[in-house]
Each structure stands twice: as C-alpha cells, then as structure tokens.
C-alpha cells in the first residue's frame, strides 16, 4: 500500500501546442491507473497553473465552436469532477488583472464538489516539495 504523488505544473498559454491539453488529460488518467497497480496502491496528480499558464483558466472558451476541439476550460472541469486538486497562482492572476470571476472555479453543473483553489505561489512551492515527481508543461 503506497502512494506516489505527481505534481503537474502548467506554465504556458493554451492552444499553441497540445502542451496544456496533454497535461490535463494525463493528470486525469491518474484516476484509472489502478488497473496496473496492486490493491491499495495509488498515483495522485495535483495540478498548478503558474505564469502565463493561468490564462488556461479563463471562462467562456469557444474552442469547440470555433475549431471542434475540447477547450482547456472543459478539461479543467473534468479535473474537478474527478476530485483532482487544481491550484491557480494568485500573484499571476493579479499580474494579469484577473479575479475569481474571470476564471473557471467550479464544475457545479456536472455535480463536482471540488473547486479551483487560488493560492499564493508559496503554496505551489509546498506542493512541489511534497510530491514525489514533477512534470512541467
């Protein structure tokens, strides 16, 4: 019975490459990893958006309407639905003049209990120290 903790750090804007999308879909796959593991063993995925990466979290992304592509917004909602820990750096939101009103904070419409946590960078540093491995996107 062991748990391996992974920290996913998203530092870049969405939609340039598949970078952000792959970060979130890989983090989500932590929910099905048990098929490969022994009973009781776990892999957890915490996600933090930092720097330009906070722009991934803006509301009202029309990627599906415009390009037929799942939006980062809906991937974040999926993460919440699957009870992943999603953090957004407060200092970076402040830098862009963004508040909790501008970003995805919950996925209530899908019945998710988890909400996005807007936290100072120091909290994200703590997460980075706490996890076993870091994956920067």
């Amino acid at each position, binding site marked *: 019975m062991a748990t391996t903790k992974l920290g996913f750090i998203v530092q870049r804007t969405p939609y340039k490459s598949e970078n952000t999308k792959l970060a979130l879909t890989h983090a989500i796959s932590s929910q099905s990893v048990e098929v490969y593991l022994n009973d009781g063993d776990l892999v957890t995925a915490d996600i933090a958006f930092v720097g330009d990466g906070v722009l991934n979290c*803006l509301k009202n992304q029309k990627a599906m309407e415009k390009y037929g592509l799942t939006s980062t917004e809906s991937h974040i909602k999926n993460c919440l639905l699957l009870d992943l820990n999603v953090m957004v750096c407060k200092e970076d939101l402040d830098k862009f003049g963004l508040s909790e009103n501008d970003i995805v904070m919950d996925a209530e419409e899908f019945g998710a209990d988890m909400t996005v946590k807007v936290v100072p960078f120091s909290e994200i540093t703590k997460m980075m120290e706490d996890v076993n491995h870091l994956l920067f996107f």
Partner: protein
Amino acid sequence: MKLAVFVSDYRLNVDTLDRLKAEKLGIILVQNGVYHATAKENGAASSLLNKSADFYALSDDLETRGLSAAVNSKVKVISYGDIVDLMFNEYDKNVWL
C-alpha cells in the same frame, strides 16, 4: 513595401518586428498572438500596440481563448475572410514571425 506581419505568439522569441521597415505596416494577431490585443500585465497593455501600425485580431482565436470581451480599442476584430481580403487588397507581402 506594404507588409502584413502575423504575430502568432504572446512571448515572442525574436526581435525582428522592431526592425522591420515598411511604408504601410499591418500587424495581424492570430493564435496566441491575440493575447496582445487583450492582456494587461500590471495594468499595462502590450507594448506591441505602441507600434505605428494597423492592428487586427482574429475573432475565432479570441473566442477560442475566452477573450472576446476585452479587446483594446486600437485593434480591429476580423474574420478569416477578412484576412484573405487584407492579404490581397491592402498588403503586398506577408510574414509570419
């Protein structure tokens, strides 16, 4: 030279734009370049918008990123069809940075 410059990223890793000379210069913001039309870092608009040029931003790419609300007044929001018309009617050369 009437030059249309396509800016497709927010953090440009080239300084070419500062050095291009054209009688008529158009800057067309596409893909992640559209953040230049909306982002305010520490309250300031992108310094790109200080250039002496006509500015355009692609509507589809603004909407994809959830940015339609806050476009700078210097920037005209355009469609793919408008880009085609600009290329053929207003400018004679295009570059993609």
